[in-house]
């Protein structure tokens, strides 16, 4: 699984963290998305896809 994040697009909604908090986090200073794990196990695909779908700024792309 390949996850690409775009920090410039991110609006710090935090929804990716709610969907998969072992994969995504937020920077303390402005809430912008941080990738914790760029190659999570295939079992996490559904949650990571969910994170990408709920992102209001289209800042997360998943290639599986």
């Amino acid at each position, binding site marked *: 699984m390949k996850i690409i994040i775009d920090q410039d697009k991110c609006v710090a*909604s935090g929804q990716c963290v709610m969907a998969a908090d072992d994969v995504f986090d*937020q920077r303390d*200073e402005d*809430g912008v998305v941080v990738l914790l794990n760029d190659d999570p196990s295939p079992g996490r695909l559904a949650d990571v896809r969910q994170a990408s779908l709920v992102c*209001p700024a289209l800042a997360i792309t998943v290639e599986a």
Partner: protein
Amino acid sequence: MTTIPEYDIARSARCPLDPAPAMRARQEEGPLTRVRLWDGGTAWLVTGHAEHRAVLGHPEVSVEPARGLPRLSPAEAAGMDSMAKEGSSGLGFIMMDDPEHARLRRMVTSAFTVKRVEAMRPATQEIADELIDRLLAGPKPADLVEAFALPLPSLVISNLLGVPYDDHEFFQANSRTIINRNSAPAERGQAQRRLAEYLDGLIGEKLAKPGDDLLSGLVERVKAGELSRQEAARMGVLMLFAGHETTANMITLGTLALLRDPAQLALLRESDDPKLIASAVEELLRYLTITHGGLRRVALADIEIAGQVIRAGEGIITVNETANRDPSVFPDPDRLDLRRNPRLHVTFGYGVHQCLGQPLARMELQVAYPALLRRIPTLALATELEQIPFKHDGFVYGAYELPVTW
């Protein structure tokens, strides 16, 4: 000649928790139709879920009044004209496009990260418990809005911003005026000015004596020259009113919806599974859609949505409540089903303007409903549905009061 139907957001008295019948009729005609506005002009009405997200996520769609946003009432049009004359952006970054919007929004996003909000959960629980203690010790029936639904988020946002809660009657009354679609322009302008002056005064105090709160953080930006004092005051106004009016209405209407559906109520009361509680909150957000009547945008270029070209300069209204009842995304959409976890609901909007405070709102609701239902197991409505005064005129739907007993 076909007649273009009127934009009409009035919900029905018999089904006050469902989208307006006129909105549903437009949705049946298609995801994208035209409506006539009060001033004779027209706008695109977006009722489908996919189309709603396509518009709000589109880079060629603007939220700035000066570029030609649809105007939804005479009062609001007058307000926009006077804002344009003063060169003011009114409510701050929610009515600005990027990059200015992003610059200002990023100055406050740190306060609303999932981690920061989680850290506020125990204090929020304490506030909820104290309010319920007081409610139980008082006379019944009681008004749930005044006793619980409004003070809970007001206390939380006051603490977060560093606004003295003792001033709550002042800021609640002015917020109500701003949020009412039909407030006279002069009245609304006055309410906005009063809140702006109040926040400016607080900023002055924090310049002299900073604390550990969000406004003090903005004051640091003012000192560093990154933000004007006026911009800081405007952001304070926005967060203060957006932070309590919305959540208060969700607590009120969510409680009402649960009291009318004993099976769903029992499900939530008897579970201590955080996943079910989180899912229940999402479903109540979807089902009730208190962001009422639509979000306004204007196309900056010709854009194609659902096979339809929207021309540059045309106004667009995206309707959250019909998007949230779109059967292609939410099967059996009119049924309240706390287990469905409808994470794609658009109650907080979509795109770069999506609600900044959503993690906070979710946490507050995850605390509020279980606290109420468990500590007051006999909670019941103390009036008939027909007697409840709903906020038909607001940009945020809700009820002015909700008499309950136990």
